């Protein structure tokens, strides 16, 4: 039991670390496209770790099912958001950032 809880705590901690990484990306990256990428990818990986940790703690299969469903749906929604925003940004004529020479 204690092993399981320790593993869950570890997974949640890793997940939180990915969330922090995502925010650092949001703070530091130079343009919309790269910020989208930080936000959507890092945060959802983080949520995956948190969901995995919580699934270890779940008492019954139904709870695990709900947790997995939440994660998959959030993942799909994030994919849609980044796709839509990036697609629209390109159409609006927004230029990706390039390193100045």
């Amino acid at each position, binding site marked *: 039991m204690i092993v399981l809880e320790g593993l869950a705590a570890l997974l949640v901690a890793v997940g939180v670390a990915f969330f922090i990484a995502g925010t650092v990306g949001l703070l530091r990256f130079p343009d919309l496209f790269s910020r989208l990428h930080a936000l959507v990818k890092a945060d959802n990986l983080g949520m995956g770790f948190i969901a995995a940790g919580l699934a270890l703690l779940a008492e019954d299969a139904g709870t695990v099912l709900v947790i997995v469903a939440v994660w998959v749906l959030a993942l799909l929604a994030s994919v*849609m958001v980044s796709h*839509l925003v990036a697609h629209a940004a390109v159409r609006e004529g927004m230029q990706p950032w390039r390193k100045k020479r």
Partner: protein
Amino acid sequence: MMLLIDGAVAVGLVWMALRALNARRLTEAVIVFIGFTGVMALAWVRLRAPDLALAEAAVGAGVLVVVLLDGLGRLAHLLGGRTPLRAAAVVLLPLLSLALVAVLLRALGDLPSAATGLGPRVFAALEQSGVENPVTAVLLNFRGFDTLLEVFVLLGAAVAVALLRPLDRALPRGAGPITAGPPQTPMADWYRRRLLPVALLVAVYLLWAGGSAPGGAFQAGSLLAGVLALGLLTGTPLAGRPAAAWAAAAIGPVAFVLAALLFAVGGHGVLQYPPGWAKAAILGLESLLTVSIAAALTLLVIGIPRRRRP
């Protein structure tokens, strides 16, 4: 730890409200306001009111988002003007507002403890209500009359919005209110087609679970409306069938009134369920109400077409 989290949520709520009301850019204000409703859902969970959290999340993240962003889009050509305020108002009103906070906070300290509320009586009568979720029991049994009026408010709002439709120079339905926009992408299509069944499943679960656990007609209905709004945004040709939508919006309130009259004629009070029938009656009414709430909210989202420039 709990108090720390609650403090963060409460401060976040006030900060987001201030930002939504004072941000210089209107788009920023609307975006922060949408975030505010999300944080409200968190606050409801912390206050142990999951029914409210479900409703707030479903309404705030679905219908309200689309209504506000769509409304903002319609006003985009007007954005940018600024009107000065009278100096007296700028000085006096904040002082009055501060006084209000002081008085209300003082009153908060004087309130009697929660044990004097109606809660114990609800729990005492819960056995006879036909459901185990006390909130559902209050909404559909003990205070069914209020809920009846509420669904009429919802239907009334949908009718009122429809009445705002410009009679002359309205754009044709094809140029319709919600489906306008830049070309859609195949991915959005794919997403919508997978999301709709999932949302339907969750809505049915919320409705069914509403008898014994958090959930119910309002939560299920607003979730469905949110997903339908999402579908409309990706191009579901739903807006083309207004008669069906209106019929769906009316069926719940009508059934509610008929049930009330039927019970009254059958020798019980208005909206007093006959013994043994409460559970079935509540579940049946809730199912129809879910359909109606979803339809009425969707009609509210669709809104009215734009008036053509003269």
